[in-house]
Protein backbone atom coordinates (compact mmCIF):
# COMPACT_ATOMS: atom_id res chain seq x y z
CA UNK A 1 0.00 0.00 0.00
CA UNK A 2 1.42 3.34 -0.99
CA UNK A 3 1.34 6.29 1.34
CA UNK A 4 -1.51 8.14 -0.38
CA UNK A 5 -3.62 4.99 -0.05
CA UNK A 6 -3.67 5.29 3.71
CA UNK A 7 -6.97 7.04 4.18
CA UNK A 8 -5.92 9.70 6.63
CA UNK A 9 -8.04 12.65 5.70
CA UNK A 10 -8.10 15.64 7.95
CA UNK A 11 -11.02 18.01 7.70
CA UNK A 12 -9.03 21.07 6.80
CA UNK A 13 -11.22 22.83 4.28
CA UNK A 14 -12.59 25.24 6.84
CA UNK A 15 -11.83 28.94 6.55
CA UNK A 16 -10.18 30.61 9.52
CA UNK A 17 -10.75 34.16 8.32
CA UNK A 18 -7.01 34.80 8.31
CA UNK A 19 -6.85 34.86 4.52
CA UNK A 20 -9.01 37.93 4.48
CA UNK A 21 -6.24 39.78 6.33
CA UNK A 22 -3.70 38.68 3.73
CA UNK A 23 -5.71 40.39 0.99
CA UNK A 24 -5.68 43.58 3.01
CA UNK A 25 -1.92 43.31 3.45
CA UNK A 26 -1.49 42.87 -0.32
CA UNK A 27 -3.60 45.94 -0.94
CA UNK A 28 -1.37 47.99 1.38
CA UNK A 29 1.77 46.72 -0.30
CA UNK A 30 0.41 47.47 -3.75
CA UNK A 31 -0.47 50.99 -2.73
CA UNK A 32 3.05 51.40 -1.34
CA UNK A 33 4.53 50.15 -4.59
CA UNK A 34 2.78 52.88 -6.56
CA UNK A 35 3.70 55.63 -4.11
CA UNK A 36 7.29 54.77 -3.19
CA UNK A 37 8.33 52.06 -5.56
CA UNK A 38 8.79 49.72 -2.61
CA UNK A 39 6.80 46.53 -2.75
CA UNK A 40 7.01 43.67 -0.32
CA UNK A 41 6.67 39.99 0.35
CA UNK A 42 4.09 37.97 2.29
CA UNK A 43 5.25 34.58 3.55
CA UNK A 44 2.33 32.23 3.10
CA UNK A 45 3.87 29.43 5.20
CA UNK A 46 4.52 31.80 8.05
CA UNK A 47 0.80 32.49 8.42
CA UNK A 48 -1.73 30.33 10.23
CA UNK A 49 -3.67 29.47 7.09
CA UNK A 50 -5.62 26.27 6.62
CA UNK A 51 -5.49 24.56 3.23
CA UNK A 52 -8.97 25.93 2.68
CA UNK A 53 -7.71 29.45 3.34
CA UNK A 54 -4.93 28.98 0.82
CA UNK A 55 -7.32 27.84 -1.89
CA UNK A 56 -9.66 30.72 -1.13
CA UNK A 57 -6.75 33.15 -1.38
CA UNK A 58 -5.68 31.73 -4.74
CA UNK A 59 -9.24 32.06 -6.02
CA UNK A 60 -9.50 35.64 -4.86
CA UNK A 61 -6.24 36.67 -6.47
CA UNK A 62 -7.05 34.95 -9.74
CA UNK A 63 -4.74 34.36 -12.67
CA UNK A 64 -2.92 36.90 -14.75
CA UNK A 65 -1.00 36.79 -18.01
CA UNK A 66 2.43 35.66 -16.90
CA UNK A 67 3.57 32.27 -15.68
CA UNK A 68 7.29 31.69 -15.23
CA UNK A 69 8.89 28.36 -14.57
CA UNK A 70 12.39 28.28 -13.07
CA UNK A 71 14.64 25.29 -12.82
CA UNK A 72 16.78 26.27 -9.87
CA UNK A 73 17.60 23.35 -7.62
CA UNK A 74 14.12 21.98 -7.89
CA UNK A 75 11.37 23.72 -9.77
CA UNK A 76 9.94 27.07 -8.89
CA UNK A 77 6.96 28.82 -10.41
CA UNK A 78 6.09 32.49 -10.48
CA UNK A 79 2.51 33.34 -11.40
CA UNK A 80 1.13 36.72 -12.06
CA UNK A 81 -2.23 37.12 -10.38
CA UNK A 82 -5.19 38.99 -11.83
CA UNK A 83 -3.71 42.05 -10.15
CA UNK A 84 -0.68 43.33 -11.99
CA UNK A 85 2.48 43.45 -9.85
CA UNK A 86 1.06 40.87 -7.44
CA UNK A 87 2.95 37.62 -7.88
CA UNK A 88 2.41 34.19 -6.42
CA UNK A 89 5.73 32.40 -5.93
CA UNK A 90 6.04 28.66 -5.23
CA UNK A 91 9.37 26.95 -4.50
CA UNK A 92 9.76 23.20 -4.69
CA UNK A 93 12.78 21.11 -3.82
CA UNK A 94 14.31 18.59 -6.13
CA UNK A 95 11.81 15.99 -5.02
CA UNK A 96 8.96 18.26 -6.17
CA UNK A 97 7.80 19.05 -2.62
CA UNK A 98 6.59 22.54 -1.95
CA UNK A 99 9.12 24.07 0.44
CA UNK A 100 8.06 27.70 0.55
CA UNK A 101 5.44 29.99 -0.88
CA UNK A 102 5.22 33.76 -1.08
CA UNK A 103 3.13 36.57 -2.46
CA UNK A 104 5.42 39.23 -3.78
CA UNK A 105 4.35 42.74 -4.70
CA UNK A 106 6.83 44.11 -7.28
CA UNK A 107 6.88 45.26 -10.88
CA UNK A 108 9.15 42.33 -11.62
CA UNK A 109 10.14 39.77 -8.95
CA UNK A 110 13.85 40.21 -8.34
CA UNK A 111 14.43 36.52 -8.65
CA UNK A 112 13.82 36.95 -12.40
CA UNK A 113 16.30 39.70 -13.07
CA UNK A 114 19.90 38.76 -13.56
CA UNK A 115 22.49 39.81 -10.98
CA UNK A 116 25.18 42.26 -12.29
CA UNK A 117 27.95 39.96 -11.04
CA UNK A 118 26.42 37.10 -12.99
CA UNK A 119 26.00 39.36 -16.04
CA UNK A 120 29.62 40.35 -15.75
CA UNK A 121 30.87 36.80 -15.60
CA UNK A 122 28.47 35.90 -18.42
CA UNK A 123 29.85 38.70 -20.53
CA UNK A 124 33.34 37.39 -19.88
CA UNK A 125 32.31 33.93 -20.98
CA UNK A 126 30.73 35.34 -24.13
CA UNK A 127 33.84 37.35 -24.93
CA UNK A 128 35.95 34.26 -24.55
CA UNK A 129 33.59 32.35 -26.77
CA UNK A 130 33.64 35.06 -29.43
CA UNK A 131 37.40 35.16 -29.21
CA UNK A 132 37.48 31.40 -29.69
CA UNK A 133 35.15 31.61 -32.66
CA UNK A 134 37.06 34.33 -34.42
Amino acid at each position, binding site marked *: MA*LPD*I*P*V*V*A*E*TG*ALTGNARAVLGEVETLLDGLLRTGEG*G*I*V*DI*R*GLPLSPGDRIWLLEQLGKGEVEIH*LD*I*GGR*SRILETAYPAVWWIE*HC*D*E*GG*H*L*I*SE*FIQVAYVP*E*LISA*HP*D*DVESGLEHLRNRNADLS
Partner: protein
Amino acid sequence: MSDNRILETLAGQGISRRAFLKYCATLASLMALPPSAGKAFAEALAKAPRPSVIWLPFQECTGCTESITRSHSPSIEGMIFDMISLDYQETLMAAAGHQAEAALHEAMERNMGKYILIVDGSVPLGLDGAYSCIAGRSNLEMLKEVAQGAAAIVAMGSCAAYGGLPKANPNPTGAVAVSDVIKDKPIVNIPGCPPIPAVITGVLAHYLTFGSLPELDHLGRPKSFYGETIHDRCYRRPFYDQGKFAKTFDDEGARKGWCLFELGCKGPVTYNACASVKWNGGTSWPVESGHGCLGCSEPDFWDAGSFYKALSMPANPLKLAAGAAVAGAVAGIAISVSNKARKGAAKTGHETTTLADLEKHHE
Protein backbone atom coordinates in the same frame (compact mmCIF):
# COMPACT_ATOMS: atom_id res chain seq x y z
CA MET B 1 39.27 25.75 2.11
CA SER B 2 37.67 28.10 4.53
CA ASP B 3 38.97 31.07 2.60
CA ASN B 4 36.42 30.34 -0.09
CA ARG B 5 33.24 32.41 -0.18
CA ILE B 6 30.05 30.45 0.23
CA LEU B 7 28.56 31.42 -3.09
CA GLU B 8 31.72 30.43 -4.93
CA THR B 9 31.62 27.02 -3.32
CA LEU B 10 28.01 26.62 -4.26
CA ALA B 11 28.63 27.74 -7.84
CA GLY B 12 31.32 25.10 -8.00
CA GLN B 13 28.61 22.56 -7.24
CA GLY B 14 26.32 23.92 -9.92
CA ILE B 15 24.08 25.89 -7.63
CA SER B 16 23.09 29.14 -9.23
CA ARG B 17 22.57 32.48 -7.55
CA ARG B 18 18.83 32.19 -8.14
CA ALA B 19 18.75 28.77 -6.50
CA PHE B 20 20.70 30.26 -3.61
CA LEU B 21 18.23 33.13 -3.31
CA LYS B 22 15.39 30.65 -3.32
CA TYR B 23 16.90 28.67 -0.48
CA CYS B 24 17.68 31.74 1.52
CA ALA B 25 14.08 32.88 1.20
CA THR B 26 12.89 29.45 2.26
CA LEU B 27 15.32 29.40 5.18
CA ALA B 28 14.02 32.74 6.42
CA SER B 29 10.50 31.40 6.12
CA LEU B 30 11.39 28.32 8.16
CA MET B 31 12.93 30.49 10.85
CA ALA B 32 9.78 32.58 10.96
CA LEU B 33 11.84 35.62 10.08
CA PRO B 34 10.37 38.41 7.95
CA PRO B 35 10.67 37.73 4.19
CA SER B 36 13.17 40.55 3.91
CA ALA B 37 15.59 38.46 5.99
CA GLY B 38 15.84 36.06 3.06
CA LYS B 39 17.42 38.79 1.00
CA ALA B 40 19.72 39.75 3.88
CA PHE B 41 20.77 36.12 4.19
CA ALA B 42 21.51 35.90 0.51
CA GLU B 43 23.58 39.05 0.41
CA ALA B 44 25.56 38.30 3.54
CA LEU B 45 26.04 34.62 2.91
CA ALA B 46 27.17 35.15 -0.67
CA LYS B 47 30.13 37.12 0.53
CA ALA B 48 30.74 35.34 3.82
CA PRO B 49 33.77 33.10 4.21
CA ARG B 50 32.88 29.52 4.98
CA PRO B 51 33.45 29.05 8.67
CA SER B 52 35.64 26.28 9.93
CA VAL B 53 33.56 23.71 11.75
CA ILE B 54 34.85 21.01 14.05
CA TRP B 55 32.34 18.28 14.77
CA LEU B 56 32.94 16.08 17.76
CA PRO B 57 30.83 12.97 18.12
CA PHE B 58 30.69 11.71 21.69
CA GLN B 59 28.48 9.15 23.37
CA GLU B 60 25.91 8.92 20.58
CA CYS B 61 24.24 6.66 18.04
CA THR B 62 25.15 8.58 14.90
CA GLY B 63 21.46 9.22 14.32
CA CYS B 64 22.04 12.95 14.30
CA THR B 65 24.73 12.63 11.65
CA GLU B 66 22.48 10.34 9.66
CA SER B 67 19.63 12.79 9.91
CA ILE B 68 21.69 15.55 8.40
CA THR B 69 23.67 13.67 5.84
CA ARG B 70 20.62 11.86 4.53
CA SER B 71 19.02 15.11 3.57
CA HIS B 72 19.15 15.60 -0.16
CA SER B 73 21.47 18.15 -1.56
CA PRO B 74 20.82 20.89 -2.36
CA SER B 75 17.93 20.80 0.00
CA ILE B 76 17.74 23.42 2.63
CA GLU B 77 19.06 20.93 5.14
CA GLY B 78 21.94 19.98 2.93
CA MET B 79 23.05 23.57 2.53
CA ILE B 80 24.96 23.23 5.76
CA PHE B 81 27.64 21.21 4.04
CA ASP B 82 27.99 23.86 1.41
CA MET B 83 28.06 26.68 3.88
CA ILE B 84 30.78 25.36 6.11
CA SER B 85 34.26 24.04 5.94
CA LEU B 86 33.90 20.81 7.86
CA ASP B 87 37.42 20.28 9.05
CA TYR B 88 36.90 17.39 11.42
CA GLN B 89 34.13 14.82 11.60
CA GLU B 90 35.27 11.34 12.43
CA THR B 91 32.37 9.56 10.90
CA LEU B 92 32.43 11.41 7.62
CA MET B 93 36.09 12.25 7.06
CA ALA B 94 38.25 10.13 4.85
CA ALA B 95 41.21 10.49 7.18
CA ALA B 96 41.60 8.20 10.16
CA GLY B 97 43.82 7.61 13.14
CA HIS B 98 46.75 9.98 13.63
CA GLN B 99 45.94 11.71 10.38
CA ALA B 100 42.52 12.64 11.67
CA GLU B 101 43.89 13.91 14.94
CA ALA B 102 46.39 15.99 13.07
CA ALA B 103 43.59 17.52 10.99
CA LEU B 104 41.76 18.40 14.15
CA HIS B 105 44.69 20.17 15.67
CA GLU B 106 45.57 21.92 12.47
CA ALA B 107 42.03 23.26 12.14
CA MET B 108 42.01 24.36 15.76
CA GLU B 109 45.29 26.22 15.45
CA ARG B 110 44.47 27.85 12.15
CA ASN B 111 41.06 29.11 13.26
CA MET B 112 41.71 29.59 16.97
CA GLY B 113 38.87 31.57 18.50
CA LYS B 114 36.84 31.54 15.30
CA TYR B 115 35.77 28.00 14.59
CA ILE B 116 32.36 26.59 15.40
CA LEU B 117 32.23 23.44 17.46
CA ILE B 118 29.38 21.05 16.82
CA VAL B 119 28.92 18.30 19.37
CA ASP B 120 26.60 15.37 19.09
CA GLY B 121 26.32 12.83 21.85
CA SER B 122 26.48 13.21 25.59
CA VAL B 123 29.59 13.45 27.72
CA PRO B 124 30.02 10.54 30.16
CA LEU B 125 31.61 11.59 33.45
CA GLY B 126 31.59 8.18 35.12
CA LEU B 127 34.96 6.41 35.65
CA ASP B 128 36.75 9.62 34.69
CA GLY B 129 35.09 9.57 31.30
CA ALA B 130 36.36 6.09 30.42
CA TYR B 131 33.03 5.07 28.91
CA SER B 132 33.73 6.97 25.70
CA CYS B 133 37.22 7.73 24.41
CA ILE B 134 38.73 8.84 21.11
CA ALA B 135 42.40 8.40 20.45
CA GLY B 136 42.85 7.39 24.05
CA ARG B 137 41.36 10.56 25.42
CA SER B 138 38.04 10.89 27.12
CA ASN B 139 35.22 12.92 25.60
CA LEU B 140 35.37 15.19 28.60
CA GLU B 141 39.03 16.00 28.08
CA MET B 142 38.55 16.49 24.36
CA LEU B 143 35.53 18.71 24.77
CA LYS B 144 37.30 20.95 27.22
CA GLU B 145 40.28 21.30 24.91
CA VAL B 146 38.40 21.94 21.70
CA ALA B 147 35.82 24.21 23.30
CA GLN B 148 38.56 26.59 24.41
CA GLY B 149 39.18 27.90 20.92
CA ALA B 150 35.62 27.79 19.70
CA ALA B 151 33.63 30.93 18.91
CA ALA B 152 30.41 29.11 19.68
CA ILE B 153 29.24 25.61 20.37
CA VAL B 154 26.27 23.89 18.80
CA ALA B 155 25.01 21.00 20.91
CA MET B 156 23.25 18.94 18.30
CA GLY B 157 20.65 16.39 19.29
CA SER B 158 19.08 15.67 22.63
CA CYS B 159 22.18 13.85 23.91
CA ALA B 160 24.48 16.82 23.52
CA ALA B 161 21.76 19.26 24.52
CA TYR B 162 20.43 17.48 27.61
CA GLY B 163 22.38 14.30 28.14
CA GLY B 164 20.11 12.25 25.96
CA LEU B 165 19.26 8.58 26.10
CA PRO B 166 22.55 7.73 27.85
CA LYS B 167 21.38 9.89 30.73
CA ALA B 168 18.14 7.92 31.04
CA ASN B 169 17.46 6.66 34.51
CA PRO B 170 19.68 5.18 36.06
CA ASN B 171 22.33 6.83 33.86
CA PRO B 172 25.06 4.21 34.21
CA THR B 173 27.79 6.24 32.46
CA GLY B 174 27.10 9.48 34.28
CA ALA B 175 26.20 11.16 31.02
CA VAL B 176 25.74 14.93 31.01
CA ALA B 177 25.01 17.63 28.46
CA VAL B 178 27.65 19.82 26.86
CA SER B 179 26.29 22.75 28.82
CA ASP B 180 26.99 20.88 32.03
CA VAL B 181 30.69 20.86 31.19
CA ILE B 182 31.29 24.09 29.30
CA LYS B 183 30.16 27.23 31.04
CA ASP B 184 32.14 30.00 29.34
CA LYS B 185 31.11 29.71 25.70
CA PRO B 186 27.87 30.50 23.93
CA ILE B 187 26.05 27.23 23.41
CA VAL B 188 23.11 26.65 21.11
CA ASN B 189 21.08 23.55 21.88
CA ILE B 190 19.41 21.89 18.93
CA PRO B 191 17.59 19.05 20.64
CA GLY B 192 15.67 16.31 18.92
CA CYS B 193 16.28 12.66 18.48
CA PRO B 194 17.38 13.35 15.83
CA PRO B 195 17.09 17.12 15.43
CA ILE B 196 15.60 18.75 12.37
CA PRO B 197 18.51 19.28 9.94
CA ALA B 198 17.22 22.65 8.73
CA VAL B 199 17.60 24.03 12.22
CA ILE B 200 21.35 23.78 12.19
CA THR B 201 21.42 25.41 8.76
CA GLY B 202 19.27 28.20 10.09
CA VAL B 203 21.46 28.72 13.13
CA LEU B 204 24.62 28.86 11.02
CA ALA B 205 22.97 31.16 8.47
CA HIS B 206 21.96 33.46 11.26
CA TYR B 207 25.45 33.41 12.72
CA LEU B 208 27.10 34.13 9.39
CA THR B 209 24.61 36.81 8.40
CA PHE B 210 24.20 38.71 11.61
CA GLY B 211 27.40 37.73 13.40
CA SER B 212 25.44 36.51 16.38
CA LEU B 213 23.51 33.49 17.56
CA PRO B 214 19.75 33.56 17.11
CA GLU B 215 17.57 34.34 20.10
CA LEU B 216 17.48 31.36 22.46
CA ASP B 217 14.87 30.18 24.95
CA HIS B 218 15.61 29.22 28.56
CA LEU B 219 16.80 25.79 27.43
CA GLY B 220 19.25 27.33 24.96
CA ARG B 221 17.13 26.48 21.92
CA PRO B 222 16.59 28.89 19.01
CA LYS B 223 13.20 30.41 19.60
CA SER B 224 12.50 30.61 15.90
CA PHE B 225 12.31 26.83 15.74
CA TYR B 226 11.40 25.90 19.29
CA GLY B 227 9.09 28.78 20.08
CA GLU B 228 5.84 26.88 19.81
CA THR B 229 4.68 23.43 20.70
CA ILE B 230 4.00 20.65 18.24
CA HIS B 231 0.39 20.82 19.46
CA ASP B 232 0.08 24.52 18.59
CA ARG B 233 1.11 24.01 15.01
CA CYS B 234 -0.41 20.59 14.52
CA TYR B 235 -2.90 20.21 11.70
CA ARG B 236 -4.86 17.81 13.95
CA ARG B 237 -5.32 20.48 16.59
CA PRO B 238 -8.91 21.28 15.51
CA PHE B 239 -9.89 17.70 16.44
CA TYR B 240 -8.43 18.18 19.89
CA ASP B 241 -10.54 21.29 20.30
CA GLN B 242 -13.64 19.43 19.15
CA GLY B 243 -12.93 16.56 21.49
CA LYS B 244 -12.39 14.06 18.67
CA PHE B 245 -9.73 11.55 19.60
CA ALA B 246 -8.37 8.36 18.09
CA LYS B 247 -8.71 5.67 20.75
CA THR B 248 -6.52 3.06 19.10
CA PHE B 249 -4.09 3.17 16.21
CA ASP B 250 -6.53 1.52 13.82
CA ASP B 251 -9.95 2.75 14.79
CA GLU B 252 -12.32 4.99 12.90
CA GLY B 253 -10.88 8.09 14.57
CA ALA B 254 -7.33 7.13 13.60
CA ARG B 255 -8.41 6.68 9.99
CA LYS B 256 -10.10 10.05 10.00
CA GLY B 257 -6.96 11.66 11.29
CA TRP B 258 -8.31 12.65 14.68
CA CYS B 259 -6.14 13.88 17.50
CA LEU B 260 -3.67 11.40 18.99
CA PHE B 261 -3.65 12.91 22.48
CA GLU B 262 -5.25 9.88 24.06
CA LEU B 263 -2.70 7.61 22.40
CA GLY B 264 0.02 9.37 24.30
CA CYS B 265 0.98 12.23 21.97
CA LYS B 266 3.36 14.57 23.80
CA GLY B 267 2.75 17.38 21.29
CA PRO B 268 1.29 19.73 23.91
CA VAL B 269 4.51 19.79 25.92
CA THR B 270 7.03 19.47 23.10
CA TYR B 271 8.63 22.53 21.59
CA ASN B 272 9.82 21.84 18.08
CA ALA B 273 9.12 22.72 14.48
CA CYS B 274 8.26 19.25 13.13
CA ALA B 275 4.66 20.25 12.40
CA SER B 276 5.71 23.07 10.07
CA VAL B 277 9.13 22.05 8.76
CA LYS B 278 8.31 18.34 8.56
CA TRP B 279 10.73 15.55 7.77
CA ASN B 280 12.27 13.83 4.78
CA GLY B 281 12.15 16.80 2.51
CA GLY B 282 8.76 17.94 3.76
CA THR B 283 7.15 14.56 3.09
CA SER B 284 5.58 13.96 6.45
CA TRP B 285 6.20 13.97 10.17
CA PRO B 286 5.32 11.63 13.04
CA VAL B 287 1.81 12.87 13.75
CA GLU B 288 0.97 12.98 10.06
CA SER B 289 2.11 9.39 9.75
CA GLY B 290 -0.34 8.46 12.51
CA HIS B 291 1.89 8.25 15.57
CA GLY B 292 1.84 10.64 18.49
CA CYS B 293 4.80 12.87 19.24
CA LEU B 294 7.29 11.27 21.65
CA GLY B 295 8.53 14.62 22.87
CA CYS B 296 12.11 13.84 21.80
CA SER B 297 13.26 17.46 21.84
CA GLU B 298 12.39 17.88 25.51
CA PRO B 299 14.77 17.10 28.35
CA ASP B 300 14.43 13.59 29.80
CA PHE B 301 11.56 12.63 27.50
CA TRP B 302 12.46 8.98 27.90
CA ASP B 303 11.76 9.12 31.61
CA ALA B 304 8.48 11.01 31.24
CA GLY B 305 6.20 7.99 31.49
CA SER B 306 5.11 5.74 28.68
CA PHE B 307 5.09 7.08 25.12
CA TYR B 308 1.58 5.66 24.81
CA LYS B 309 0.02 7.14 27.90
CA ALA B 310 -1.97 10.34 27.53
CA LEU B 311 -0.29 13.32 29.17
CA SER B 312 -3.11 13.60 31.67
CA MET B 313 -2.68 10.02 32.79
CA PRO B 314 -0.45 9.00 35.67
CA ALA B 315 3.12 8.72 34.48
CA ASN B 316 3.60 5.62 36.59
CA PRO B 317 1.19 3.14 38.11
CA LEU B 318 0.02 4.27 41.53
CA LYS B 319 1.88 2.13 44.01
CA LEU B 320 0.81 3.67 47.27
CA ALA B 321 -2.96 3.75 46.76
CA ALA B 322 -3.84 0.29 48.06
CA GLY B 323 -1.56 0.63 51.07
CA ALA B 324 -2.93 4.08 51.80
CA ALA B 325 -6.49 2.82 51.67
CA VAL B 326 -5.63 0.12 54.17
CA ALA B 327 -3.77 2.61 56.36
CA GLY B 328 -6.80 4.93 56.19
CA ALA B 329 -9.10 2.12 57.26
CA VAL B 330 -6.75 1.19 60.10
CA ALA B 331 -6.52 4.81 61.27
CA GLY B 332 -10.28 5.17 61.01
CA ILE B 333 -10.99 1.99 62.93
CA ALA B 334 -8.40 2.85 65.58
CA ILE B 335 -9.90 6.26 66.23
CA SER B 336 -13.41 4.87 66.16
CA VAL B 337 -12.55 2.22 68.76
CA SER B 338 -11.00 4.91 70.91
CA ASN B 339 -14.02 7.16 70.34
CA LYS B 340 -16.39 4.41 71.40
CA ALA B 341 -14.41 3.95 74.59
CA ARG B 342 -14.50 7.66 75.25
CA LYS B 343 -18.19 7.93 74.64
CA GLY B 344 -18.80 4.86 76.77
CA ALA B 345 -16.78 6.38 79.61
CA ALA B 346 -18.81 9.59 79.34
CA LYS B 347 -22.01 7.55 79.55
CA THR B 348 -20.82 5.49 82.46
CA GLY B 349 -19.73 8.65 84.22
CA HIS B 350 -23.11 10.24 83.71
CA GLU B 351 -24.52 11.68 86.90
CA THR B 352 -28.23 12.13 86.67
CA THR B 353 -29.06 15.78 86.82
CA THR B 354 -31.45 16.86 89.47
CA LEU B 355 -32.83 20.33 89.91
CA ALA B 356 -30.03 21.28 92.25
CA ASP B 357 -27.51 20.36 89.57
CA LEU B 358 -28.67 23.16 87.34
CA GLU B 359 -26.92 25.64 89.57
CA LYS B 360 -23.18 26.05 89.71
CA HIS B 361 -23.15 26.71 93.45
CA HIS B 362 -25.54 25.99 96.24
CA GLU B 363 -27.16 29.18 97.31
